[in-house]
Structures are given as structure tokens and as C-alpha cells.
């Protein structure tokens, strides 16, 4: 961020700037609260639903060994009151024991989620970068050439991108670029023919990330466009224009930094949307991430695994908001200078 940004004097009592330590402390304090709320909500739903851990593991035949029943009782709490069950369930979660998972057949869930989380994180962050770069470029261009065909095209594309089902967009891209043109692989995260494909092949990342970006870019592109239009009317921008600063410099150095400050918070809140979109994109392209694990768990009615994923998602959202708060502090000089 350049030092040319000027701000109007703050009106009213100046807010006490939050130091980085305070921001981290505040978010970390909300983390257990959020997790408790998510756990309580999911447990409540499970309690009123017909789902029964014992019958879910035994199936229709009803044959179950005493040892397995014991394990289930340990995981889900003894046959006591609902509140007692919730207490013991919560205690297990706090110890990192999230229950039995049919799907994983006894593998530790933390390891499996961590293993699946990495590809998802790569996918979501790549899509986020695409959204931010694309939104920045096209949002600024649309604002600079307001009401031009370009502006119209950007707005229309954003609107239709929001309205189109992401899994359908993914299928279209897959059909065109993978099946017809043969430019890109159709699924998976690595080339299975390669002896040692490594972890993630960037070529495999393109289609899922672009799918996610196309259907999620509208909020940012339109946000940049609208804010730029507003900032371009500001006094300091008009002064810069009047004093003969080149148009490109006006846009990028005087208008853009001011337009960008609140977007960091928006990115934090949109992270959860991206995670939801990843479920569909990962399913279409067979991406081995959390999203596909979610669908696998849902199809297998593996409730403990679904709950574990929900909790992991909540942790991610809280952490995303924490990062956004910290970045916000870096980006906004009013907060930064006040703190040092």
C-alpha cells in the first residue's frame, strides 16, 4: 500500500486500535465458544432425529458384538439422559476422539481429515487467488469504463456466474476442455499413470479451481466496481485528476487502495461460501479433498464423520476470520499507525 493514501479526519471519538495480540486473543477466545455451539447444535439435531448409533453400525441384521457395543457406548455416551450423553460426547471430542467411523474403518479421523484438508485448502486458496486477481482487474476496468460494453459484459458475466449451478459449470468446462479439446485432465489431483505423481499436479488443479472461481467471483468483482465508482467521486481523486496525474495512476494509486480496505473482511466472511462450493467442485472433478469426503460420509450416513467435518469447517472459518482481522490491521494505516 502506498503512502499517498489520504484519509478524512476521523469524526467522533477515535476507536482504540486493537493490537495484533488482542485480535488473536479475541478470536482464540471465540473459537471454543463457536465449537461448543456447533457441537450443541449438531448433538441436538442428532438427538431429535431417528438416527441411532447402535442400529447405524449393526445394520438390519442387528448382529453386533458386545465389544463393539461397548465401543459405541464409549463414543456416544452411555444410555443415560440426553444431557449426560452430550456431556460424555463433548468430553470425547475435547480429547480428540470423534467417534467410530464406518467409512474409515477404524482409522484415526484426525489424520484422515488432515490428509484430505490439504488438497481442499490448495483448491480453495487457488480459487480465492483467481477470484481476487480476476475481480480486481475486471472490477477496476468495469468502473473505469462505466456503461461501456466491457462494463456490461463484466456485470452480466458476474450475474450469470452467480446464478449458474457450480456443478453444472464444472461439467461444461470438463466437457469442453477435457473431453472435446483434451487440453486438461478430467479429474483427480495427480496423473495416475505417473510412477510418482507427487502430491498435487498443478494441471489437475486448473479446472476445479476455475469452476469454483467463476461461480464465486461475482461478489468481489461487483464489490470492486461499485466501490471504485464511489471512490472515483472522492475529493482526493478529483484533485489528483485535476493536477494532471495520469488516468492509470489515478486509478491504481489514488482510488484503488481506498476501495480495497474493507474487502479483506469480506474475504474472511466469504471463506465459508468457498468451502461449500468446494464440496460440489470436488465431487465433479474427483478432487480428493474434504468436500468429497463430506459427500462420501453423507452417502454412507456416517454421522460421526459428518460432525467431525462440520467442526473442522468451523475451525477453518474462525481461523480465516482471524487472518482477515490481522490483514485488515496491516492494510488500514489508521489502525496500524494507531497501534505502534
Amino acid at each position, binding site marked *: 500500500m502506498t503512502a499517498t493514501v489520504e484519509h478524512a479526519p476521523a469524526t467522533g471519538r477515535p476507536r482504540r486500535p486493537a493490537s495484533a495480540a488482542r485480535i488473536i486473543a479475541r478470536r482464540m477466545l471465540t473459537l471454543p465458544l463457536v465449537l461448543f455451539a456447533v457441537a450443541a447444535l449438531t448433538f441436538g439435531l442428532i438427538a431429535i432425529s431417528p438416527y441411532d448409533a447402535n442400529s447405524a453400525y449393526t445394520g438390519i441384521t442387528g448382529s453386533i458384538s458386545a465389544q463393539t457395543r461397548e465401543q459405541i457406548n464409549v463414543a456416544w455416551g452411555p444410555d443415560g439422559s440426553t444431557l449426560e450423553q452430550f456431556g460424555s460426547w463433548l468430553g470425547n471430542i475435547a480429547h480428540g476422539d470423534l467417534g467410530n467411523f464406518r467409512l474409515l474403518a477404524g482409522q484415526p479421523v484426525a489424520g484422515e481429515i488432515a490428509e484430505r484438508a490439504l488438497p481442499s485448502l490448495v483448491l480453495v486458496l487457488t480459487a480465492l487467488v483467481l477470484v481476487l486477481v480476476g475481480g480486481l482487474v475486471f472490477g477496476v476496468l468495469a468502473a473505469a469504463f462505466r456503461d461501456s460494453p466491457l462494463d456490461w459484459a463484466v456485470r452480466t458475466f458476474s450475474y450469470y456466474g452467480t446464478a449458474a*449451478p457450480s456443478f453444472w459449470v464444472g461439467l*461444461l468446462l470438463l466437457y469442453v476442455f477435457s473431453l472435446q479439446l483434451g487440453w486438461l485432465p478430467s479429474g483427480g489431483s495427480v496423473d495416475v499413470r505417473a510412477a510418482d505423481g507427487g502430491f498435487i499436479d498443478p494441471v489437475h488443479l486448473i479446472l476445479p479451481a476455475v469452476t469454483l472461481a467463476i461461480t464465486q467471483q461475482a461478489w468481489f468483482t461487483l464489490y470492486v466496481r461499485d466501490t471504485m465508482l464511489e471512490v472515483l467521486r472522492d475529493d482526493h481523486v478529483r484533485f489528483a485528476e485535476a493536477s494532471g496525474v495520469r488516468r492509470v495512476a489515478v486509478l491504481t494509486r489514488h482510488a484503488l487502495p481506498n476501495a480495497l480496505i474493507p474487502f479483506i473482511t469480506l474475504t474472511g466472511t466469504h471463506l465459508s461460501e468457498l468451502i461449500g462450493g468446494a464440496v460440489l467442485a470436488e465431487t465433479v472433478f474427483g478432487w480428493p479433498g474434504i468436500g468429497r469426503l463430506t459427500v462420501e460420509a*453423507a452417502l454412507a450416513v456416517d454421522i460421526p464423520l459428518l460432525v467431525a467435518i462440520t467442526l473442522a469447517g468451523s475451525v477453518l472459518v474462525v481461523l480465516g476470520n482471524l487472518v482477515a482481522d490481522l490483514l485488515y490491521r496491516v492494510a488500514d494505516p489508521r489502525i496500524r499507525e494507531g497501534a505502534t
Partner: protein
Amino acid sequence: MTTLAPAPPRFARLREVATRPTSVLIAGGVLAALVLAALGADLLRPADGIALDRVLAPPSLEHPFGTDETGRDVLALSLRAMRVSFAISLLAASVALLIGVTIGVLAGTLGGWVDGLLMRIVDFFGSQNHFLFAILLVVLFRPVLGAAAAVCLSVGLSHWLVLARIVRGELLSLRERPFVAAAVGGGASRARLVVRHFLPHLGPSVAVAMVLLLPHAIFHESALSFLGLGLPPHQASLGNLIAAGQRSMLAGAWWISVFPGLLILAACVAFGTLGEYWRDRHQPRWRGELEL
């Protein structure tokens, strides 16, 4: 009551319609056509059953959307699926309406700690991913409610936040209006205030919110069905059709998945355009909350 304003000129209503932006007129036309086609699916395109002599036929005059891998007409399937999608989305949006208005009215009328608590709950739900939540709900309640009702419940329970916020916001400003003070002075109870004075005023903003909620409901319903977590194949919605066409697509038959998706896109854009136009004209204060 006498009105002093002059009577509106004849055809004023017609002129008002004719001067609407072209996009709004087109959206209205498209939506009307889609709804009529969905309702009249049996007349327009009777279900033709399996015909193995025309398997995976590309789009033609006889079969504008082509045929699927058992030779069924994709247009006929799509119209029926669209009817299912519309019906489920309407029901899901009604569930959201019921929950959202109840929470919003409670928060806006009772105020104080109830308001604080309910708004914290709304914020909490807003920070979580509503699609994961919808998946969990549908998995938990499908065995007891059946697929269709579970999808309605799941989409409704994950989409009421906007309605709650809007209803609460409307009530906060309504409460300050003189006619409310007059009603309270006249001895109206809280329940009477809500039923006679608050709810009628909520109509317009709630209606706009409902129109803009429908595309979300359509999308979420079709996404759940696409993943195999929504409706069963014999009640196929547009999402089921797209999923069913996925395999044929690998064999080069793109039309089974593409056309149902286009119908979703058209319906969502039409609902969005109409809803946002209506919002800008009558409820501009909810611009930030109500979007496609």
C-alpha cells in the same frame, strides 16, 4: 375517506408496465413461460417412456433436447423435473419464511436480551457454512421424513437468516411510528400489535425476500439432488437429471446435463432480475441484504 389526488389516467398501469426496463420484461416473460411449461408439462410433452431404437439421439426438431440413454425425450423429462424443482423450492422457501418471520418478529417485538440472544444465533448461523449444515440435516432426517420433505426442511432451515434480519429491521423502525404509539395508547396488547399493525406492514419486504430466496432454494435443492442426497430418481428434479447425464457426457452426449442446467440458470436469473428490480423500487434499504 376521500381522496384528493386526481384519478390516475386510463392505461396508466399499462404504460407503467411498458416503460419497465427491457431486462425486467424479458425476465418476466421467461419466468412466465417456464412456469407455464412446468405446469403444462403433461399437455406439452407427454412422457414417452423407454424407446431403445433412439438411444442418446442428439437434439433434433423431433426431440429439441435430445434423448437419454434409454431413449426418453429429455425435454419431457426436464419439464417434469422443473415442476418438481419449483414445487420443492417453493415449499423450502415457505419453511424459511415461517422460521425467519417468527424469529424476526420475536427479536423485533420483545427486544432486550431476547433480541440480543436471537441476533447472536443469527450471526452464528451466518458464520457457518449453510451447505454443510443442509447436508447434515438431509442425512439425519431423510429416513423419517422422506426425501422430499427432508430436502424442504434442510433448505428452509439453512436459509431463514436473511428473512429474520429483514423482519427485525422493519419492526425496529415500525415500532417508532406514531400509529403504533396510538395503538399502544389505545390499550392494544403485544399480540394485537403484531397481528394487526406489524405483520401487514411486513408484506412487501417479505415478498421481495421470498422472490430472491427462490433461486437459492432451487440451487440448493438441485445441488443436494446432484450429490445423490436429495430426491430419489422417480421424483427427479433438475439436479437429478444433471447427475444422470454425467455419465453420458463422458460418452459425448452433452445434452442430457446441459439443458436442465440451462433451465436452472434461466429460472434463477429471471427470479433474480425481477426480485432485484422490485427491491430497488420498493425496498431500496435492503440492497445489501437482498441479493441474488
